[in-house]
């Protein structure tokens, strides 16, 4: 079956989630990938949304993190202070699944302002939401976003959520308990932090993709892993389930 680069990205993100994991899910692309994983290879994936719905099992894609279907299918529904203080903060959750507007070479995320200065920005974005503490406390973080020079920048305009700060040792100094962004999954490939420098490095590329092309669509001098792997294309089954899910999303939703 033929497929789009967005479908390749979502399928790659879904494959990273293992059965039985607990996953704190952001809305949009992360939610799509997490629900694909649950509908394919990871039926016991525990989806947790910041609305306090733990173990949600939506049969259709929600538009918001608080659609009724999440509460009605959840194992437990808790209050908002409780989801952050009791469930997220102590490091109980395996993986935080986030989107981003801007991301830098150390995996720091900006979802606050772009251009100008804080008081007079060129673009005012929605802000932090649950992301700073998800990025701090989940055992690991996966970020899903489309790759371009506009989104992959040398230095983010505003640090909303911390990746590896300014490099090795930052997370430890700040007292951030989780391991930080271990995979950035884009429409071009997969980036992972270099174990020594924490700098995001291209480690996976899609069939037919070229490392040089990925470098061109990155706002810093992207390093390519010596062990660059080609990621298997989506299987027919993965595509069928994904398309079935997407068809259930409200028409016009941002993806």
């Amino acid at each position, binding site marked *: 079956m033929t497929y789009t680069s967005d479908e390749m990205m979502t399928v790659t993100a879904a494959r990273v989630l293992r059965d039985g994991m607990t996953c704190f899910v952001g*809305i*949009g692309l992360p939610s799509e990938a997490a629900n694909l994983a649950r509908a394919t290879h990871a039926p016991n994936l525990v989806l947790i949304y*910041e*609305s*306090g*719905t733990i173990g949600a099992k939506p049969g259709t894609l*929600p*538009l*918001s*993190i*608080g*659609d*009724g279907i*999440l*509460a*009605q299918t959840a194992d437990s*529904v808790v*209050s*908002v*202070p409780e989801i*952050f*203080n009791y469930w*997220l*903060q102590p490091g109980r959750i395996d993986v935080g699944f986030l989107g981003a507007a801007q991301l830098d070479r150390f995996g720091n995320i900006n979802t*606050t302002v772009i251009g100008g200065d*804080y008081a007079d*920005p060129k673009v*005012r*974005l*929605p*802000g*932090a*939401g*649950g*992301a*700073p*503490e998800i990025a*701090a*406390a989940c055992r690991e973080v996966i970020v899903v976003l489309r790759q371009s020079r506009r989104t992959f920048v040398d230095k983010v305009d*505003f*640090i*909303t*959520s*911390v990746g590896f*700060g300014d490099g090795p040792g*930052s*997370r430890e100094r*700040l*007292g*951030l*308990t989780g391991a930080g962004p271990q995979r950035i999954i884009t429409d071009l490939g997969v980036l992972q932090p270099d174990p020594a420098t924490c700098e995001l490095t291209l480690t996976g590329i899609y069939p037919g993709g070229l490392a040089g092309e990925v470098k061109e669509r990155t706002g810093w001098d992207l390093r390519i892993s010596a062990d660059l792997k080609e990621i298997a294309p989506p299987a027919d089954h993965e595509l069928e389930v994904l398309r079935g899910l997407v068809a259930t999303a*409200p*028409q*016009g*939703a*941002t993806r």
Partner: protein
Amino acid sequence: MAEIVSLAEAIAANVHDGDTVAMEGFTHLIPHAAGHEVIRQRRRDLTLVRMTPDVIYDQLIGAGCARKLIFSWAGNPGVGSLHRFRDAVENGWPVPLEIEEHSHAGMANRYLAGASGVPFAILRGYRGTDLPAHTAGVADVVCPFTGETLTAVAAIKPDVTVIHAQQADRLGNVQYWGITGVQKEAVLAASRAVVTVEEVVEELVPRPGGVVLPSWLLSHVAEVPGGAHPSYAQDYSVRDNDFYLAWDAISRDRATFTAWLEEHVQVLVRGK
């Protein structure tokens, strides 16, 4: 004891110009009808507090009710920007909007401190982000027992909190269930509380996961069926996702927004 009154009376008695007002409901049970009543009563200079300003505050901001917004995520969930919020922040229309922004965990803990009657709450949060440099009410605090540095956030104490619930009884006791959000903390943190409900019933039957707020905690209760729309009340309505999607086009342009407000909110006072 809460008095059961009309929506107009409840808002007139509790929401005044210059007040700090929290209208809570996390995606579910957002008190939209009460927001519209605040617009109709032409309240001004409000400090609006809400984790996710959402369409409800986009409307209040666009109508010129707000001087300041305290929040943690200002988007239209799954759709995109809040255009009236952005126009106010980026261009000062219709009036300049001061902002104070936090993370969700920070806001939830600020309400929790307010509800608990202590001046601040403690969390692991904000560290390494650019938020504390631009936001009042966030500071480092050292644990007196372990020496570890954590983050303190200042309590929020609204003058009035407004929420929507499924049911009240005739004495003004209130029950809501489903996604319960941060409403309990927001009500307990406030000097006054107004609750709109889908229905006044003879007797409140306890629901799994339900929260009951006793009448003596509340100022006024008003029966407003459908009062959460386009948000929803579990077991009464479903989220009107089509409206959230449509809001993008309605709110993008000042004239379209103003016309919408005139037709759907203001007309209720003039027309009826």
